């Protein structure tokens, strides 16, 4: 098993939700999409490549053949799958510190959800409902979501720069180059393998 691939951690959390409340939870997500300011904190944290919440109706677990017994469930379920940067504790900590209200909105109607503050109730809830990943693939183990985003900006800007600057005189080129550096100084961190996230050796 490995929940870790380079700088990314794969989290799977599946939690029950009464079927009628699942409708409210759907509405809560609609609300989030309608008013993206609800995502401001998540965006500012900038620790996630991609994350998804999927509500599975209690009657909508895939059923493929008569030989497969039909599920007979009391509850619907919500599956949360995140690809984030940092260790488990760091991620849970940061989320709980920075956007407690946001988390509460995302899990609000789930059974047993303790709210994100105090922290340890939330910790235990996530740990308890988390499922380990057996195979995890990351296209860029050396890059965090921040690295990907800054790379994209820098790459675009560099392409623009080469289009306009190569014909300049040496002196003008130097000026343009310095302006390029100034405009892109926030994208110039160097990448390497990330800090160790695994507790396996400890």
């Amino acid at each position, binding site marked *: 098993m490995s929940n870790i691939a380079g700088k990314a951690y794969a989290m799977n959390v*599946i939690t029950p939700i009464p079927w009628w409340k699942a409708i409210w939870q759907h509405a809560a997500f609609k609300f989030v999409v309608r008013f993206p300011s609800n995502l401001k904190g*998540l965006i500012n944290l900038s620790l996630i*490549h991609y994350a998804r919440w999927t509500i599975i109706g209690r009657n909508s*677990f895939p059923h493929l053949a008569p030989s497969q017994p039909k599920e007979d469930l009391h509850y619907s379920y919500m599956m949360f799958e995140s690809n984030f940067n940092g260790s488990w504790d760091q991620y849970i900590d940061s989320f709980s510190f920075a956007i407690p209200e946001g988390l509460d909105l995302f899990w609000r109607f789930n*059974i*047993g959800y303790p709210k994100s503050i105090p922290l340890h109730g939330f910790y235990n809830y996530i740990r308890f409902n988390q499922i380990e990943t057996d*195979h995890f693939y990351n296209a860029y183990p*050396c890059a965090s979501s921040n690295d990907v985003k800054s790379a994209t900006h820098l790459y675009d800007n560099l392409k623009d720069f080469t289009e306009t600057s190569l014909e300049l005189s040496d002196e003008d080129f130097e000026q343009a180059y310095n302006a390029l550096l100034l405009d892109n100084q926030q994208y110039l961190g*160097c990448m390497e393998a990330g800090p160790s996230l695994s507790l396996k050796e400890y």
Partner: protein
Amino acid sequence: MANTSGNAYGLTALCPIINGHTNDSNPLYKAAGESHDKEVRRILQALPLNQESPFANTDNTYLARLFILNDVFFQQGNDFKRDQLKSKYLCFNSNFHGELEPYLTSLWNNNENQVREIWQHCVAFESVSNANDFVRYIKSCQLTTTLFFNGSNDQPVAEQLKALYVKQMFSEFVLTQQGKSAAELKQAFKYFLQRVQLNDVKSPSWKPGQTEVAL
């Protein structure tokens, strides 16, 4: 509600695993006493990683995972009912660029053996014999994402990798140029452009799943 966020696609599929032991007529399996879910888990855990992962061979995978949902958890307390799943599920969760059909086709075409090895333990997979079947199969197991949060971007993976490569190269380049004369700088920059080939997305670039920053 939304399996897509721009050109990024979020796939979640729950593929039911056959209950009981693997092929009873095969004495090898029987001796090992392997149930299908254990067999799948063993295969998943033995899949090669990073650049060798089947997903590195599947065009446009950003991040993908496979795991097994054995059951759901009982929420402790008086007021809660107890649910138990009747099947175990192979969960396939992928975030990729582009559309579902070409993605799954690429997964099949480039990794047919591994796909067969993994999914053979799933219910009704015996009906799958080509890429089209596989697409149909996964779609029949697909769940609709309720909320897709794209904290990155929705570019083709090749573009992202090229951008990362260029970023790394350029942030090293600038360090070597501090204090150089204007003429030297311009010359060096031209040489830099020749090396990194900004407009060639494919090469030179990082390879999907590459674990070190140097090429």
